[in-house]
């Protein structure tokens, strides 16, 4: 077992354990904090996969913005936190069954996917960040999705402002 495998196992354990707490914690502030731990574990995986830029974006956007937004929302709706009733609905055994089943199905399919073992990995180009930037704005590649994503953000922003606005 080499160093990268040890790092993988540690971060996988972090991801899965904290994800379990995200979906089971009674206190939603704790759930949101556990989400940060999960997201951080995923960022470590990105580093392991030599996608350094994505790791940074994961920390800045996902942890820095999205997870914090969650914590804000939990705080703003804190009355629900005081209720001591169960946080799961009556269907939770069904939910458990469905998710176990989908895990089994996807894992079964992924099982045959070991092709990386028999050939060395292609090296990541040293200018991969440059390539990513180029790809995002090159007309022959991804400029259209990039622009559509910006339109999407405008629409979401307008909508969120309208909904959250105090209309009284």
């Amino acid at each position, binding site marked *: 077992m080499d160093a990268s495998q040890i790092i993988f196992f540690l971060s996988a354990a972090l991801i899965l354990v904290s994800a379990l707490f995200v979906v089971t914690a009674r206190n939603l502030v704790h759930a949101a904090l556990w989400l940060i731990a999960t997201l951080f574990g995923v960022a470590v995986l990105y580093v392991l996969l030599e996608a350094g830029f994505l790791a940074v974006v994961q920390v800045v956007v996902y942890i820095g913005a999205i997870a914090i937004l969650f914590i804000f929302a939990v705080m703003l709706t804190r009355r629900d936190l005081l209720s001591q009733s169960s946080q799961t609905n009556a269907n939770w055994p069904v939910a458990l069954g469905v998710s176990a089943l989908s895990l089994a199905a*996807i894992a079964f399919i992924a099982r045959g*996917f070991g092709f990386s073992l028999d050939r060395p990995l292609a090296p990541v180009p040293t200018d991969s960040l440059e390539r990513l930037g180029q790809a995002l704005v090159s007309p*022959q590649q991804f400029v259209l999705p990039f622009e559509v*994503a910006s339109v999407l953000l*405008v629409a979401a922003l*307008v*909508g969120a402002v309208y*909904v959250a606005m105090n209309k009284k």
Partner: protein
Amino acid sequence: MTITDFSVILPVTLLTAWASILLLAELFLPRAQRPFLALLAALGLALTLGISLAQSAQEFAPGFGGMVVRDGFSNFLNVLFLLTGLFGVALSYRYNQRAQIERGEYYPLLLFSVAGMMLMGQAADLIVVFLALELLSFPLYILSAFAYPRPQSEEAGLKYFLLGAFASGFVVYGIALTFGASGSTDLARIVASVAAGSANLPLLTAGAGLLLVGFGFKVAAVPFHMWTPDVYQGAPTSVTAFMAAGAKTAGFAALLRVFGAAFPALAADLSPLMAILAAVTMLFGNLIAVAQTDMKRMLAYSSIAQAGYLLMAFAPFEIEAARTMAVAGALFYLLAYTLASFGSWGVVIALEKDLDRHLSIGDFAGLARRSPWLAAAMTVFMLSLTGLPPTLGLVGKIYLFRAVIEGGMVWLAVIGALTSVVSAFYYLRIVVNMFMREGEPAVEREWWLEFAIGAAAVVTVVVSLWPFPLFEWAEWAVMKLF
């Protein structure tokens, strides 16, 4: 970037730009001039419709390195989506004034949603499919929650949002697996990698299955339908009308494009699944609809059942000869469904004098006397949804059933025919109420609404008498797809 690139996305670009300008226009319009925004929105949709029609004679063209295409399929759908948008504006215009939700954000959001639908029809890459799905959905979540301060509306928005976001989780995961299986998100390259034998087929099947779940939510197929009645009932009726037609058509556009073009290699695995999905959706939707007394919930279950009929188009994918006809039949049926759905929701709006009261089926009693034209139009829509002459619904159903039978799935066609008989019970019950029962329904008179209802009814009848040009258009539209 070339001229072709621009010309391919010209309609979408124009509509997006128009929506952005509309957002700003509200700032400069005094409050009393707000109704003007609806007119501006309609003008933008009409302009885009003009451009789409002008482009419809042009040849197949890919744009932006294969991200999007313009072909007969996308042209047909563009026209359908723009008509959906125009109907949506016509139905919203007075309703929003009555419901006091005439706010400047409404029409830009509606236009953004139409732009997302059009992009869905043109998408040739799974990344664009995903973005188009989100672009058409986000505005719909907001519009469902638009009718402040009615709590049902905000709840409908939240429910629709949670289910939609859940579905997009499936779509993203499915795209990720597809990407892993084939090494690309480009539909053409996925097909090529399958043909070359370099794709991992089990993984591709899993990806396709997850995509199917995600889009199953969008088109409200059983067992992914549970949000539909609540959202359709709670959202402002004008929004419900728009989403019942637009979101469903867009979901089917994506399914037809992705499953028709990229996954034919999986047809043997997927088509029994699709056939079962179609059968369950038809049975469940129609049987539950019979038990409904609330008009909006009945129409919601009816729209679930209609998704079942449309899903039949995917059943004969294994048979090469039936495939073209099935997809053309689905396009044809989508048009018939759009008209009938908008028409019937329009009649619901006309009868919704009191917005806080739930409209029940009994409220249609006596409509034939009070307002004979409205009753006649409603009869046309109910006949079309059932699949009875002289309406487009019948022609569309014949078309779909024939494709299914040629695909060798007679049992599915039999289920389709039997459930159509069941559906006659609840659709025609409304007709009976309108013509045979006494009652004093309150009817809202409004010119744009009546115009939209009338136009939908006239087209539904007239085109059904001479449907051949539309047939040819639909068949031409799918020619390049395979």
